[in-house]
C-alpha cells in the first residue's frame, strides 16, 4: 500500500454514490463537469506517480555498450498532460433534474455507477417543494417567462387549497392501481397494497403518492409532493393546474427536491464543498445508507431485476 502515491489511494476510494445539492439555473451536465474538474484538479495536486523509467542503450556497437536507466521524458506530466483528467472518472446521475430544479441530486462515481443504476431501477420516491405565486400566469409556466395574465387571488382560502390537494391525492391513488393493472376490488390488489407502496410498472407516467400545502402566505404558497417518475415540465404544469382549479392563475417560482429515497437535504453537499475531502466523507455516509437500503426486502437487487426485464422482453 505504501508504494502507491496519495492520489492513487484517494482515487481508489472514489467508488460509490454521492449526494449533491444542485443549484437552480445550472444544467446537470454542467454540475457534473464542475464536480469532476474539481476532483481531478485536487487529485493532480496531491502527489501523483513519478514518470516511468526507460532503458537507454548507447555507445559504439563494436565496443562495450552503455546501458543506462533514466526517467522517460515521454511520461513526464509536462509532456503527456495531467495524470487525472475528467474523462477518467466514470460518473452518472440517477434522476435527471432539469435546469430550474434545485436540490438533492444523487450521483454515482466509478464503481458506484452500478449502484446508482440499481437505485434508479427501484423506483425511489422523491419529495419536492414547489414554490408558487398566485394571480399571475406566464407563457412557460415559470416566473421568468412572459406574463400572459394577471388576476385577483384574495378569495383563495386555506380550506379551498386543502380540499383540492386531497382530491388530487385521491384521484392519483385510483390511478396507482390502474397503472399496476389490477382491479381495486380484488384479492390481488389487496395483496399488492399490503406489500407497501405500489410502484408503477413503467418509467413513463408520473404518479403522485402524497400532496399537501405546507404554507399559504398569499400570494405565495409552498406545496410538498411525494412523486415517482416526474419530470421538470410535469411539476411546472402541476402548479399551473392547481392555479386553474383554484379559479385563478399560478406560476412556479422555484422547484426544490428535498428528498431522494433515503437521501435527505441535510447530507447533500453544497457547490462550494465539492472537493475531494468533502466528497469522500459524503461518499462513505451515502454508501452506508445505500447498504441499509439494499438490505430491505422490497429492494430489487440486480439479478432479480434482470429476470423481470427478461420477462418483460419475452412478453413483448
Amino acid at each position, binding site marked *: 500500500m505504501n508504494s502507491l502515491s496519495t492520489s492513487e489511494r484517494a482515487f481508489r476510494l472514489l467508488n460509490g454514490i454521492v449526494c449533491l445539492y444542485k443549484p437552480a439555473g445550472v444544467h446537470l451536465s454542467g454540475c457534473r463537469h464542475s464536480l469532476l474538474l474539481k476532483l481531478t484538479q485536487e487529485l493532480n495536486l496531491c502527489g501523483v506517480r513519478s514518470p516511468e523509467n526507460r532503458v537507454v542503450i548507447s555507445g559504439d*556497437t563494436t565496443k562495450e555498450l552503455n546501458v543506462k536507466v533514466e526517467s522517460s521524458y515521454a511520461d513526464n506530466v509536462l*509532456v503527456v498532460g495531467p495524470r487525472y483528467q475528467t474523462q477518467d472518472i466514470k460518473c452518472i446521475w440517477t434522476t435527471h433534474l432539469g435546469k430550474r430544479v434545485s436540490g438533492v441530486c444523487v450521483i454515482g462515481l466509478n464503481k458506484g455507477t452500478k449502484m446508482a443504476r440499481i437505485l434508479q431501477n427501484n423506483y425511489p420516491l422523491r419529495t419536492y417543494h414547489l414554490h408558487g405565486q398566485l394571480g399571475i400566469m406566464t407563457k412557460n409556466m415559470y416566473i421568468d417567462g412572459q406574463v400572459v395574465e394577471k388576476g385577483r387571488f384574495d378569495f383563495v382560502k386555506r380550506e379551498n387549497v386543502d380540499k383540492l390537494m386531497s382530491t388530487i391525492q385521491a384521484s392519483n391513488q385510483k390511478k396507482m392501481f390502474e397503472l399496476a393493472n389490477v382491479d381495486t376490488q380484488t384479492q390481488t390488489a389487496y395483496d399488492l397494497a399490503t406489500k407497501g407502496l405500489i410502484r408503477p410498472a413503467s418509467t413513463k407516467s408520473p404518479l403522485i403518492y402524497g400532496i399537501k400545502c405546507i404554507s399559504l402566505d398569499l400570494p405565495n404558497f409552498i406545496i410538498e409532493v411525494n412523486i415517482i417518475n416526474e419530470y421538470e415540465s410535469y411539476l411546472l404544469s402541476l402548479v399551473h393546474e392547481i392555479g386553474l382549479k383554484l379559479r385563478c392563475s399560478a406560476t412556479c417560482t422555484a422547484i426544490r427536491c428535498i428528498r431522494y429515497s433515503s437521501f435527505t437535504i441535510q447530507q447533500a453537499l453544497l457547490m462550494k464543498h465539492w472537493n475531494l475531502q468533502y466528497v469522500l466523507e459524503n461518499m462513505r455516509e451515502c454508501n452506508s445508507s445505500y447498504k441499509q437500503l439494499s438490505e430491505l426486502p422490497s429492494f430489487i437487487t440486480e439479478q432479480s431485476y434482470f429476470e423481470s426485464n427478461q420477462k418483460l422482453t419475452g412478453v413483448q
Partner: protein
Amino acid sequence: MILFKRVLSFKINEQKQFFRCLCSSDNTLETIKSNQIQWPKDYNNVPLEPNVTNFSTISPALKPTFNLAAYVNESYSLQQLVKLGVEIYKFDNNPNVMEMILKLDFERDMKPYIRFIHDCGVPVEELGKFLTKNPMIFSEHMDDLITRINYLEYKKFNKEMITTIIRKHPKWLSQSTIDIDTSLGFFQTNFFLSGDNIRSVVTKLPKLITWPKKSVNLIMFSLIEEMGFNKSERKRLLQIHPKLFVMFKNHLLQRFNYIHHTMDINHDRIVFEPQVLTSRLFRIKQRHEYLQYLNRAQYDPTKPNYVPLSKLVSGDDSEFCINLAKTSVEMFNTYLKTNQ
C-alpha cells in the same frame, strides 16, 4: 449531401496535410543524421562474422504522430523545453505550433529568444509559463521583438512597466507595432485618456489592448445604452477596473441588472466599487439574500450598519459570515439549502 462530402473531404485533406508536415520535415530532429553504412566486404558470403562497423548512428525512422510525446525522448530541444517547465501537451491540438517547434534547434534557434525574454525581465521560474502561453515567439524575427520593446520605451513606458506587461501578457510580443499603436489610439480617443492614464491601464491589464475590438465595442454599447453610464463614469470604470471590458457581455448585464434593480444600488456606488460586477451572480445573490433575511442589507454609507459592496463579494464564506452577517457558517449553509 454534396456539402457534407465537401466538408468531409476538407477534413481528410487537413489530416493528410498534418501527416505530411510531420513526415516531410526532413531532418528536423537533430539526432538523425544521414550516414553511409560501410558493410564488410565479404558480408554476402559469411553473414555470421562478428560485426566491425559502428551502427550506433542508425536508428529507426520516426513515425508520424499526433502528439509531441512520441518524439520527446529523441529530441534534445524538446527535453530542454521540458526542463524549463514548458507544458508541451498544450501544443498537441495546434499543428502549426507542433510543426514550428519540431524544426527548431535549441542552441541555434531557441537560446537567443530565451535570453532576450530573460533580459526583458521575466524571471527564470516564469520562463516555462511564458513559453507555454506564447510558443510562436520563436517564429518571430529578432529585430521585430527589439522594435516592439523600443516602441514601448518610445511611448515612455519605464522598464518595470514593460516587464509587467510582458509577464502578464506573453502574447503582447507577437503583436505588430502598428496594431498596438492603433489599439492604444482607440482607447485614448474613445475614453479621453491622458498619457499617464493609458499607461496605468495598460500595465493593469495588457490583455485589453490586444482584445478584439468587436467585443470591446459591444461592452461599450452595453454600458452606454443598456446600463446608462455617462462619459466620465465609463472613463472611471476603465481606469479602476479594466477587467470589465474583457468580460462576456451577457454576464455583465445580468449582474448589473441584479445589482441595480434588485439591490437598489445607484450608478455612483457601482462606479465607486466596480469589483462587484466581476464577481459571479450566484455569489452576489446568495449573500445579498442572506443579509436581507437577517435585515442587514444596508448599502447606504450614510446610515449605520453599512455594508461595503467590495467587502460583500470578496473573501470566503467564513470571512463574510463573521464580518458582515455576524452568524456562524453552519447557519449560512443551512440557509443556502432552504433558499435556492
